[in-house]
């Protein structure tokens, strides 16, 4: 292992919550970094000797991730249009569109998923995010070390927490937060939430369990894990791996999480099946409603999500739904809404 790689790894471990900044150049800024296999037995002294320096240089360059979108393209002209549209989105390193599968793969460190979707939709095409994480960067060796096989590992690179409002016990909170393994070392988070209390501060944590039968009550404590090096000293000992800091809602009760590296101890394959909680600080954390109807907290299971190329399902075989007709609300009760509508109608007629 080279000294340089140790520095990078130490930097992530020491200050994982520091916002990425493009000015630092300790690792390639745009391309995926294939971290060397972690070694638990060596490199401790090298890590320590560079730790002080790493702390100051902790603003990691943004790490690129692979994203895959399904885009309703019908011909070669469409492909060109989509590629042209993406050429105008800043921060995109690579674009590869495939007509036969209606898929567009994008590699980017700084462009947001929303910006990419918006650019494609502006060009006149339906577009959905369908995959995250470059499965080719994860091989048999890691799978073996994790006690799994390659197939399952490649299905373990992306996790998604869906907050879906009251039907799911999430109160007023809705939105999606995604995690993706950019490489063995770096896991990224990106997402957005709404229905929060305006200007309120929420703590975001990965919880030990994915049991949401009684909401925040049953998801357990903040998830914790040791560093790759087993380094449980210093910063890591004081703060659990799943403690992801705070979010502050804007005037509309919304939060946007820009893609960034999370604590090096958090791995997509370790947090799948656990849950992500957002709890208002000083809000009691019971998940109940505030005076203005906004919720003080909610937890959503971290679901296994597809890697790039792992799920090109376009049509649902069971009922013929096409992906463009789908939404995150497909499993949200409509009965409740219907009842409300009926009630309103009755009121009007009365």
């Amino acid at each position, binding site marked *: 292992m080279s000294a340089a790689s140790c520095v990078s790894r130490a930097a992530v471990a020491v200050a994982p919550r520091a916002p990425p900044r493009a000015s630092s150049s300790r690792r390639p800024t745009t391309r995926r970094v294939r971290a060397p296999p972690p070694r*638990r037995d060596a490199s401790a002294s090298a890590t320590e000797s560079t730790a002080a320096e790493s702390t100051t240089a902790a603003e990691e360059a943004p790490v690129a991730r692979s994203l895959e979108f399904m885009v309703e393209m019908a011909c070669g002209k469409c492909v060109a249009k989509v590629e042209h549209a993406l050429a105008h989105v800043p921060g995109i390193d690579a674009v590869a569109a495939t007509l036969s599968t209606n898929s567009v793969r994008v590699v980017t460190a700084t462009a947001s998923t929303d910006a990419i979707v918006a650019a494609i939709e502006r060009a006149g095409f339906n577009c*959905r*995010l*369908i995959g995250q994480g470059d499965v080719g960067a994860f091989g048999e060796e890691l799978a073996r070390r*994790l*006690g*799994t*096989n390659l*197939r*399952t590992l490649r*299905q*373990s690179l*992306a996790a*998604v927490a869906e907050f879906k409002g009251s039907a*799911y016990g999430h109160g007023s909170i809705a939105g999606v937060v995604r995690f993706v393994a950019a490489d063995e070392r770096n896991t990224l988070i990106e997402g957005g939430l709404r229905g929060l209390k305006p200007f309120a501060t929420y703590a975001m944590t990965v919880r*030990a*369990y*994915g*049991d*949401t*039968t009684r909401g925040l009550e*049953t998801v357990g404590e903040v998830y914790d*894990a*040791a560093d790759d*090096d*087993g380094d*449980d000293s210093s910063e890591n*000992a004081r703060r659990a791996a799943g403690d992801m800091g705070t979010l502050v809602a804007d005037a509309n009760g919304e939060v946007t999480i820009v893609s960034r590296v999370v604590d090096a*101890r958090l791995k997509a*394959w*370790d947090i*799948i*099946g*656990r*849950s992500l909680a957002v709890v208002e600080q000083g809000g009691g954390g019971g998940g109940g409603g505030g005076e203005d109807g906004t919720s003080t907290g909610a937890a959503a*299971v*971290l*679901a*296994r*999500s*597809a890697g790039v190329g792992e*799920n090109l*399902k*376009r049509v*649902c*075989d*069971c*009922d*013929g*739904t096409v*992906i463009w*007709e*789908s*939404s*995150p609300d*497909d*499993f*949200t*009760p409509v*009965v409740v809404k219907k009842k409300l509508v009926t009630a309103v109608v009755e009121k009007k007629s009365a």
Partner: protein
Amino acid sequence: MMAATTTCTFTTAARHVCGANCACARASLSAKAFTPRASPGRAASLVVRAADEKKAVCVLTGTAGVEGTVTFTQSGDGPTKIVGDISGLAEGLHGFHIHEFGDTTNGCMSTGPHFNPNGMTHGAPTDEIRHAGDMGNVTATKDGCAFEIEDAQIPLSGANTIVGRACVIHELEDDLGTGDHSEPGTQGKTSKTTGNAGGRLACGVIGLTPN
């Protein structure tokens, strides 16, 4: 104790996978040479028990007043026991499946196909040729739908773990791969992939629970 811990870590590590809450995830502090996913020393006393039993739960929420809870329990490498209780279903048989992914951001599409690590076609849980995620049918009566299933193809850790994937309960009876498959890709005639079980009434993500 030391010897017991070491043994436990070694044996469970072989099965440990992706986020599974098996013993090595919690208790491998003393064996970091193998796996780094240790939780700092909190649960040393749980080591032995945790190695024996793994648990998961899926809270189903649906589009038509259908909801319920399904729990999964697996002892060692044995079969996984499912205990479910679902309300709001019409009387009769309903297909019950596990899909590859738990992601529902694009509805059914993002959950992928039925969980199928062995590349099989759709079948009955008792068939040799079946998706691992084919749980067959559950029976709803006027009193509700409570069921128990035991299945050897849906472990809660290791390769082929079902943790983080989705459970889906369907509107119609699953024909178990024996029905019409004349128009693959078309609703109602895809027996070999879907069992023609109709629309999806409720769905949930399989999450870890304390052992």
